[in-house]
């Protein structure tokens, strides 16, 4: 399972969360791209024990994720998943696109 990143079908700009109009080419057609990995930029540990991270992907994409299946440190390359039970190995859980648009 991967993270789903919105991509402009005209200019390939990437977005997360999804947008309505591409701010680069002003196109309105998008597709969802599966992205399998990103880089951990910052992490924090909540009082409930969860580790939350900012994960970056190419194209100025910044994801907020929960680390599952282990712990992560800034600078780590990390697997992305949209399934919170996919925790056999360390991964960053990024909830799917919803129906917000």
């Amino acid at each position, binding site marked *: 399972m991967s993270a789903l990143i919105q991509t402009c079908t005209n200019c390939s700009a990437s977005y*997360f*969360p999804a947008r309505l109009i591409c*701010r680069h080419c002003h196109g309105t057609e998008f597709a969802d791209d599966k992205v399998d990995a990103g880089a951990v930029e*910052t*992490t*924090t*540990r*909540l*009082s409930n024990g*969860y580790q*939350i*991270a*900012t994960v970056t992907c190419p194209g*100025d994409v*910044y994801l*907020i*994720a*929960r680390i599952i299946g282990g712990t992560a440190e800034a600078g780590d390359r990390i697997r992305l998943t949209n399934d*919170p039970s996919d925790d056999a190995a360390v991964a960053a*859980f*990024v*909830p*799917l*696109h*919803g*129906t*917000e648009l």
Partner: protein
Amino acid sequence: MAVSIIGAGESPYTRHPQAGTTSSRTIADAVTRALTDAGLTPGDVDGFAVSSFTLDPDHAIDLAWKMGFELSWLMQDTNGGASAGNMLQHAVHAITAGDASVIVLAAGDLMDNTAFAKLVARYNSATENHLTPLPLAGPNALFAMLTSRQMEKFGLGREDYGRIAVAQRQWAAGNPGAVYRTPLTLDEYLGAPLVANPLGRFDCVPPVTGADAIVIVADERADGKRKAKVLSVTASYNADNQVGDGLQTGLRKCAPLAWERAGVSPEDIDIISVYDDYPAMVVAQLLDIGILTDGADIAEFIETRILSRDLPLNTSGGQLSAGQAGSAGGLHGLVEAVRQLRGQAGDRQVHAKTAAVSGYGMVLYRHGSCANMTVLEAAQ
């Protein structure tokens, strides 16, 4: 721009609202206090704007109706911590254009545990779809990571942020309306439980129920009254499109124009209200509006200017000590600046001729997207 604020009011903030408290009643209480302060009645009002997260199913018109306002100008704002600046920016132009002559701006919320949990879970669709399912309940983790980035960029430590919280608590001691007034020591700050490292309990605003309101009139209606003249209001929304580190706010873009239009420079300012959802955002906004110059020793500035009270900053105690009453958080700092400029700040009164007020808010996904800046001047 010949528009002034001649009244301010705050419905007392409380952590534990009494049974039967509603957002509408709380806002109406603040409005009544502001009108009384201005020496006016509901019959004088012809313009009204309100910001609240919890009016549903009512809207601005319902509130206006129930308060007996007959209006020629009406506005509802949804911009949280940036609501005050946004409403003020519109109101100034409405008065200048002749659309209204006496405008009341109000903001407030019933913000008990249930209302807070509901608000943060469905703050917007991006939050509902991508943050709440993590699960994440509120923005602490987001601002924890932002604070870490700021610490790394500027070489700051937890004690530097702690000195901001300690200083604001000192100011709160002089504000009977603040929910936390007992002096806070740096050791207590550092020893408090971590909420999301590096943020501890005293880095986070306490949600409270309450409301704020101000009364704005054309200058000719304010003759002989102590007033806070509006010198400028500027705004910037979606300055960074939620890309980047979040360490620069929209104030970086809109503050220079606010200073230019006001004919005032940062070093002339006597009192500052900065939107303090977290101490790191106080630092970010002070940098963006030019009170802290780029390249300055931030830790030294915090110790020698803020902790020393040499710079009157968030003199109500700010939201960190007075509390965050939902949308009223955006108006709280403006009410405090108006009270200081009109000589109504009681034990915390400072000698102030000019004030700057910044708004910041609406976390779309990673950090705030809205910012605005107001410059005020005391006048008779």
